[in-house]
């Protein structure tokens, strides 16, 4: 189990990446596969696969199926799978099936959650080994 490059993503956010614009996946876009970034992703389309990012925003109307590893996750659309994030925000339009591993969570009125929301200490998110264990 060698350390993967995206281990660094879960360390505190890097200032150097601020200038990069967030990736924007429009509502007509469908991606099957894996997404890796040190920046932000805004998803309004469909994604099937694993996502690694600093920040993920799943907009209302968007759908993600798979695992998400990020520092911050905001869900306003439909999600099926697992979320591993320090800070998780579920908007009122969220519809989540699966598990949400989090350190802090905010859930708005109206959000639908089918699954568990296990709390984890901060150091859990600093090491990906835990996450990889959870992947398999």
């Amino acid at each position: 189990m060698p350390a993967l490059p995206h281990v660094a993503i879960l360390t505190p956010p890097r200032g150097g990446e601020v200038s990069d614009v967030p990736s924007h996946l429009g509502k007509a876009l469908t991606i099957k596969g894996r997404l890796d970034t040190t920046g932000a992703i805004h998803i309004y389309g469909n994604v099937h696969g694993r996502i690694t990012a600093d920040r993920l925003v799943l907009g209302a109307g968007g759908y993600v199926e798979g695992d998400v590893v990020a520092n911050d996750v905001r869900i306003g659309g439909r999600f099926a799978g697992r979320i591993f994030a320090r800070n998780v925000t579920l908007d009122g339009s969220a519809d989540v099936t699966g598990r949400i591993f989090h350190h802090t969570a905010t859930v708005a009125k109206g959000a639908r959650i089918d699954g568990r929301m296990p709390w984890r200490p901060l150091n859990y998110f600093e090491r990906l080994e835990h996450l990889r264990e959870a992947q398999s």
Partner: protein
Amino acid sequence: MSMFLRSDKSFDTGGSGSTARESSPPATDTKRPPSTTTSSDIAGSQPRAVSVISKSLKITGQLESTEDIQVDGEVDGDVRGASVKIGSNARVKGTVYGETVELSGTIDGKIEAKKVVLTSTAHMSGDVIHQDIRIESGAFIDGYCRPEFGKVTNKTVHPAPKPVGATPATPVREKTGTTGDFGSRP
């Protein structure tokens, strides 16, 4: 009483004063569900393209869209879109399909598009299937350019113009041994 709270919570763009617009009758478009009003608001703030793969993003897999795609990052897989732009520092390994494909970065694979533009920083390794192509000075191409977009894709890879006359029937006659005078032996 609070039914509208669920779908109309705008987020991320702080939607100042946009709530009144969102609560207007939503079923104006035929396709869109009412909850996508927020996404179109955000798309309006990024006029470059409907979907943007920014430069720090790497995608391993397939992208498919009926709208425009701007790729500035790295894609290991196929890209399909209406109008696809590959930015100057972007890399795509795979086939790029589209009505229009504008390449400023690197493609290692293939382009299949009605209209193809290779800008001066383009680096294209692979074939270009097109109907209309523009190549700016400085572009790099290593591959075939074929105006076959939209035609039947009979898989005639590399039309290899083998000289047919170079393989006459003489060797066969030599083997049969009859009337050896027809052969063109030296």
